[in-house]
C-alpha cells in the first residue's frame, strides 16, 4: 500500500523547515534507515531517514523549498508495480490538532489549603512529662522507630563508631549493629543517591548530613530523584526517606557552614519540610517523618541540640505534619517563626510584654505542608504580623507568608507585614559582624513597634 512521507518535526520546537536536499530520486528503492533527505530545522541541518520500505513513487516538495510545515506530505512511497495515486491521504496533522486542544484554559483547581486551624493539644492533659534535650529527643525518636520497623536504618558520615558528629546517634550502633547504622565515606551525592535508591526499593532510610551545608553536594538526588519520582512514575514509585541534620548558622564557622535552607526546600513539591524548635516537637515530628511515605527534609539546629525542654513521657508520641503551634497566646500582634527563629520570637515577646504589648507567637514546625489556617486566624485576631527567621531575606518563608496573608486577610491587616530575617550577606567570621548578620530579638521588638505604631 502506498504511504505518504510527511515533513518531520526534528526538534522539540520545530514547526516548519527547509527541505534542503533530496538524497534519493523518484524510482529509487529505499529501506528502513536509509537517509533520504536533508532537512534544515530551526537548530541544525538534519538527515532524515526512511522508516518504511518501498519505492519512491513521487517527490512532492522540490529541494530548496523553505517554510515546509511539519506534517506536510513531501513524498509518496509505493510498492513494486503500484501507482502513486494509491496513496491514502496522510492522517490529519496531529501536531496542529494537539496544539489546539489544550488552548482551552480549563484550569484544574489546586486543592485549597484547609482553612480550619487545628489547635488541639499535642498530648492529653495530665500526661507525665520528662525533661530532655533536643539531642536526646532526636536520638530517642530514631531508636524507637528503628526498634519498631526493621526497614528503618541510619546512614551518614560518623553516625556509627564515632557516635555521631553531634552525638545525635549516640549508642545506636551498639543497639542495632552495623547493618542498620551505616558509616559512610565522605561522599554526599553518593550516599544520598544510595539512600534514595534503597527507599525506592522499599526500605526507610534516615540519611544524616553532618550539616545541611554539605547537602548542597547531594541536592540533585534530594530534589530530582527523591522528590519527583512518585509524580514521574504516575504514583508507582514512592520514596520514604528522611534527610536530616543540623541546618543554619552555628557559631563562628563563617559563610560556607552557616546557611538556613528552609526556604530552598520548602519550595519543592514532593518534599515535606520540618524545622522543629522544641525537644517535644523534635521527637514527635521525627517519628512522623520516619513513618511518612514521602521524602522528608528534617532541619535541625546545632545551637538548639543542647537545650532542654519538657517532653511528654508517652509510649508512642507523634506530632502530625502541617499543624502549627501557638506557643504563646496574645492579642496585639502575631509573631510567626520556626526553628531557631523561635528563640528570638519568644525573647521579643517577653520584652514586649514588659511594655504591655501582648504578642501571639506561632511556631510553624513544618514548612511543607504549612499550616496557613492557624496563621490566618491569628492575624484576623491581632491584625498585625511579623515573621521571624534566620534565613536570607530574598524569597524567604516570611515573604511567602506575607503574600498569603495579603491575599487571604487583607481587610484584617492594620499594618504591613514585616519580615525579620538574616541579613543579605554571606555569613562573616568576625564575632561582631556575625552578630549583626543574624536576626536578633531587638530587631523583632523594633518591627513589632512599627506594626503596632507604639
Amino acid at each position, binding site marked *: 500500500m502506498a504511504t505518504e512521507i510527511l515533513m518531520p518535526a526534528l526538534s*522539540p520546537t520545530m514547526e516548519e523547515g527547509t527541505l534542503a536536499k533530496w538524497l534519493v530520486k523518484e524510482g529509487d528503492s529505499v529501506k528502513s534507515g536509509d537517509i533520504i533527505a536533508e532537512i534544515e*530545522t530551526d537548530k541544525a541541518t538534519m538527515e532524515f531517514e526512511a522508516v518504511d520500505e518501498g519505492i519512491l513513487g513521487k517527490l512532492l516538495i522540490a529541494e530548496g523549498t523553505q517554510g515546509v510545515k511539519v506534517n506536510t506530505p513531501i513524498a509518496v512511497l509505493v510498492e513494486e508495480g503500484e501507482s502513486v495515486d494509491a496513496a491514502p491521504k496522510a492522517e490529519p496533522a496531529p501536531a496542529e490538532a494537539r496544539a489546539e486542544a489544550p488552548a482551552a484554559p480549563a484550569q484544574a483547581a489546586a486543592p485549597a489549603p484547609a482553612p480550619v486551624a487545628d489547635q488541639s493539644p499535642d498530648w492529653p492533659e495530665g500526661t507525665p512529662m520528662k525533661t530532655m534535650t533536643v539531642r536526646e529527643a532526636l536520638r530517642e525518636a530514631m531508636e524507637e522507630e528503628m526498634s519498631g*520497623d526493621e526497614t528503618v536504618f541510619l546512614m551518614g558520615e560518623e553516625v556509627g563508631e564515632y557516635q555521631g558528629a553531634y552525638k545525635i546517634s549516640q549508642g545506636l550502633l551498639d543497639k542495632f549493629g552495623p547493618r542498620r547504622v551505616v558509616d559512610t565515606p565522605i*561522599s554526599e551525592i553518593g550516599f544520598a543517591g544510595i539512600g*534514595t535508591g534503597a527507599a525506592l*526499593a522499599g526500605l526507610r532510610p534516615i540519611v544524616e548530613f553532618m550539616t545541611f551545608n554539605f547537602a548542597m553536594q547531594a541536592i540533585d538526588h534530594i530534589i530530582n530523584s527523591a522528590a519527583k519520582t512518585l509524580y514521574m512514575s*504516575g504514583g508507582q514509585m514512592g520514596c520514604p526517606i528522611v534527610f536530616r541534620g543540623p541546618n543554619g548558622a552555628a557559631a563562628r564557622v563563617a559563610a560556607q557552614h552557616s546557611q538556613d535552607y528552609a526556604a530552598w526546600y520548602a519550595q519543592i513539591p514532593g518534599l*515535606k519540610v520540618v524545622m522543629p524548635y522544641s525537644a517535644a516537637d523534635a521527637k514527635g515530628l521525627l517519628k512522623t517523618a520516619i513513618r511518612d*511515605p514521602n521524602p522528608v527534609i528534617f532541619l535541625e539546629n546545632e545551637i538548639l541540640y543542647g537545650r532542654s525542654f519538657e517532653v511528654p513521657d508517652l509510649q508512642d508520641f507523634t506530632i502530625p505534619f502541617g499543624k502549627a503551634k501557638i506557643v504563646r497566646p496574645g492579642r496585639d500582634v502575631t509573631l510567626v517563626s520556626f526553628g531557631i527563629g523561635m528563640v528570638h520570637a519568644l525573647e521579643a515577646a517577653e520584652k514586649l510584654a514588659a511594655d504591655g504589648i501582648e504578642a501571639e507567637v506561632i511556631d510553624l514546625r513544618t514548612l511543607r505542608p504549612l499550616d496557613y489556617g492557624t496563621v490566618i486566624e491569628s492575624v484576623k485576631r491581632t491584625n498585625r504580623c511579623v515573621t521571624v527567621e534566620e534565613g536570607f531575606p530574598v524569597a524567604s518563608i516570611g515573604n511567602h507568608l506575607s503574600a498569603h496573608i495579603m491575599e487571604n486577610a487583607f481587610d484584617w491587616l492594620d499594618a504591613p507585614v514585616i519580615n525579620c530575617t538574616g541579613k543579605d550577606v554571606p555569613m562573616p567570621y568576625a564575632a561582631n559582624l556575625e552578630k549583626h548578620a543574624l536576626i536578633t530579638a531587638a530587631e523583632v521588638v523594633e518591627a513589632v513597634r512599627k506594626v503596632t505604631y507604639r
Partner: protein
Amino acid sequence: MVRKPAAKQSTPNVSKDELLKYYRDMLLIRRFEEKAGQLYGMGLIGGFCHLYIGQEAVVVGLEAAAKEGDKRITSYRDHGHMLACGMEARGVMAELTGRIGGYSKGKGGSMHMFSREKHFYGGHGIVAAQVPLGAGLAFADKYLGNDNVTFVYFGDGASNQGQVYETYNMAELWSLPVVFVIENNQYAMGTSMKRSTKSTTLYGRGEAFGIKGEQVDGMDVLAVRAAGEKAVAHCRAGKGPYILEVMTYRYRGHSMSDPAKYRTREEVQKMRDERDAIEHVRELLLQGQHASEDDLKAIDKEIKDIVNDSAEFAKESPEPPLEELWTDIYAQDVPQGGAEQNA
C-alpha cells in the same frame, strides 16, 4: 572503537529457542524505536526522545542473564530496557505520546518510566544519577538478605561524573550485588571518548576501588549474555559489584534533534553493514538452520503488528485528565512494613 568482529568468539552453546527470543526481542526494540522516531516526526511525541537503535544486543544479552526479582535502572535512553524486561509496548509508547495509558499516566515521558512489577526503576534524566540509585537498590536487596542483583546501565558520558566513583567506592566497600553496565557507544552526546578522557578503557577505572570488570563486544548478544552470566554469578556469590564495559554503537543521533555532525556518515554505515547485532543473530539462525527466511519474515510481521498496535494505542489513549496535574505529588497511605518482598 569497537573491537574487530568476533564471529567465532560467541559460544555456540545456545538453543534455537534462545536465539529466536533474542532475535525477536532485539527486533522489537528496533522497530519500536523506528516507530517512535516516526511519531516524533509527526509531532505526536514531544521534548527529548533518545533512541536505542544499534545498541539492542546490550540489554537483550544482559536480560538473558537475569532472573526474576533482579532489578534494573538506566538513563534517559530507556525504551529498549523497558521492552527487554517485559514491559508492554503499548504502555511505553503511550507514555511517549503523553497519554493516560502510558506507564506514568503521561506525567513522566520518554525519560521517566517505571514498573514495580518488572522491577524497572527508571528512566532517569540526570546523567549518572541512576548509578548511586541503582547501588541503593542493591543495598536494599543485601539488607533484606535475598540474592537479587541490580543491573545499573549508564554510558561512557556518565562515566565522567563524580558520583559514579563515590558509588564504586561504597559498592565495593559494602559488597553490593550490582552489575555496573557501561554502555560505551563512544559518544557522550557529541563528544567522542578520545575528546573526553585519556583513559583507554572505562571498566579499568573500577580497579582503583578493587572492582573487577571487563570489556565486552556489545554487538554480539551471545558475548554480552556470557559476560552478564559471569558478572551475575560474581554478585550472587556475595563478591560485590562487577563492571561490564559493553562496546556498542548508536546509529541515530543523541536525541531526535541531534544532526550528528561529529562523526561521518560512513562511520555509521560501516557499523550498520558490518556489525549489526540483529543481522548477526539472523545469520546465526539461518546458518544453523534454526529458522527459514519465511520463519523470520513471520517474526518480522509479528513484531510490526505489536509496534503498530502500540502506536495506535498511543494515539488513541486520551490525554490525562486535568485532575492528574494534582495527583501523585505525595503518597497518602502510611504502608506497614514497607519493603518490597521479592520471591
